[in-house]
């Protein structure tokens, strides 16, 4: 992991050995964050720059360390759900899904079929909402303001649906252990269908507005390239790994819910439109293609909806027998894993969250050296981190 240190030393040698130059140069340290419009929260990056080229970037995290894992050791299994919500606040439903699947796996609870289908629909809707947010803020980072407004416009429609079924706008507490809280009514199903019909032309619009935009392409193509071997070694998952050219998707590789009953493709970064494999454009473009796939999945799973109960049999006080598990699902930002250790009590003995954003933030020092500062902003945006999940 010495890569950037070596880069720094090489750079210094190069500078001092310039022919005919007796000037001693020093690297300039620029502090980016914690309050910075382009760091997606409270990430602080200490950048050592040589003129405008980043020589070394050291991310400092922990500005949103909310001690979630410590809380989980003292709270009962149902009460943890609101805390799990607050990890990745842009994709709360997906986080809840992982946690409730982990607890159900330990308890051996069977989730009713209707609840599972609802979970699938809602988590794919959440994926669309999360990717819309990533799309909007990424365009905002690169200087385009109106995509942000369009993306929020569509996102609000999804939030309206979520509010209708769960009662809250952002942190839902909707996927309970054993099923879902409220049923999806016919009105909601109609709403989803109507939304999907309106959403597909919007995607074409985003494609013409941003993805095909020459300026956007110039800003992102060939920037922040991450090779496949490095992505594996970093443990990268989700759009970051797929942008580097691997078709690893947990929904295909290890299907949970009913992902084996629906048909969808795994979008992979293939250097579309003349970009390099693994650069910012590919990571961004994989997200855009995933939204198309999500629309496909939702359409198919709406057909799977059958009447039935939505909450399985779970005792009032949940006690998990001794044991431990590691459960992971494919969240919008990558694989979220939950390592749950139980000692047969009402509270978990230990709950460790493997957050994809934490892993992806550690990639930043690797891809930063040699970029312009403005390109570094593009790199942060393309990785799409949520600091609540990085720091937990």
């Amino acid at each position: 992991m010495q890569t950037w240190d070596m880069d720094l030393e090489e750079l210094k040698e190069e500078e001092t050995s310039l022919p005919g130059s007796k000037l001693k140069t020093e690297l300039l340290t620029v502090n980016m964050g914690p309050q910075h419009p382009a760091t997606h929260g409270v990430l602080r990056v200490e950048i050592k720059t040589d003129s405008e080229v980043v020589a070394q970037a050291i991310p400092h995290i922990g500005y949103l360390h909310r001690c979630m894992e410590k809380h989980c050791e003292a709270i009962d299994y149902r009460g943890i759900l609101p805390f799990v919500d607050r990890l990745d606040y842009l994709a709360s439903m997906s986080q809840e899904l992982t946690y409730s699947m982990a607890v159900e796996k330990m308890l051996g609870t069977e989730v009713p079929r209707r609840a599972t289908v609802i979970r699938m629909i809602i988590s794919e809707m959440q994926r669309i909402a999360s990717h819309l947010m990533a799309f909007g803020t990424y365009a905002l980072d690169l200087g385009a303001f109106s995509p942000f407004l369009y993306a929020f416009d569509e996102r609000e429609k999804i939030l309206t649906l979520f509010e209708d079924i769960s009662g809250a706008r952002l942190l839902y507490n909707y996927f309970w252990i054993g099923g879902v809280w409220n049923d999806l009514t016919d009105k909601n199903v109609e709403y989803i269908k109507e939304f999907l019909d309106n959403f597909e032309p919007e995607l074409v619009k985003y494609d013409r507005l941003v993805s095909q935009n020459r300026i956007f392409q110039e800003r992102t193509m060939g920037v922040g390239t991450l090779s496949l071997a490095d992505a594996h070694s970093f443990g990268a998952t989700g759009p970051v790994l797929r942008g580097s050219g691997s078709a690893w998707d947990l929904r295909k590789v290890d299907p949970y819910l009913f992902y084996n009953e629906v048909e969808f493709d795994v979008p992979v970064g293939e250097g579309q439109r003349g970009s390099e494999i693994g650069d910012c454009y590919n990571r961004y473009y994989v997200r855009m293609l995933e939204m198309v796939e999500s629309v496909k999945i939702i359409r198919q799973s709406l057909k799977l909806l059958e009447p039935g109960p939505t909450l399985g049999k779970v005792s009032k006080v949940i006690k998990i027998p001794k044991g431990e598990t590691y459960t992971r699902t494919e969240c919008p930002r990558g694989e979220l894993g939950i390592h749950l250790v139980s000692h047969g009590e009402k509270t978990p003995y230990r709950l460790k969250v493997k957050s994809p954003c934490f892993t992806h933030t550690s990639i930043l020092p690797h891809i930063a050296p040699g970029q312009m500062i403005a390109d570094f902003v593009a790199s942060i945006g393309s990785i799409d981190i949520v600091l609540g999940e990085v720091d937990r």
Partner: protein
Amino acid sequence: MRDERLTFFGYFRNIYTAVKSSLIGMWITFRYVWGKKPVTVEYPEVRDVLPDNTRSRLYNDALNCISCNLCAISCPVDCIYISSVPRPKDLEVPKCDDGTPKRQVLTQYVIDTALCCYCGLCTVVCPTECLTHTDDYEYSQYMVEDMKYDYLTDDLIAWRDRIVKT
């Protein structure tokens, strides 16, 4: 950033694509001037209709509370404080609206809304459905102490008539 050898035609093609994509973007944005309905909710005058199960400010109808403590136990952030004493034996036991006898005398019911995380776990366990989420979200305060609501004070009991739909 791409390594392209710039030819004479490439130079003009670059200019052409840049201008073209900007114009496409401008056209897409420009169409919003007509043909699209405004989405803005003019908040203080117009309000969104909130769904029935919306989760905003908590309200406890203290007259129907049987002091079972279930809400305080299920609260993940411990922001509900209840205390009660057993009802003296010489008094008759009153009943709630749904017929549950109130064996305890409620002496304190405080919710610190500055701590509440609005998860809804307390309302689903309530046996007499006296603790509910109302659809009132407008209660900003100047002092943080004002966010602690004692549901046994007279003004909050009077608030019941406005909140509880009969």
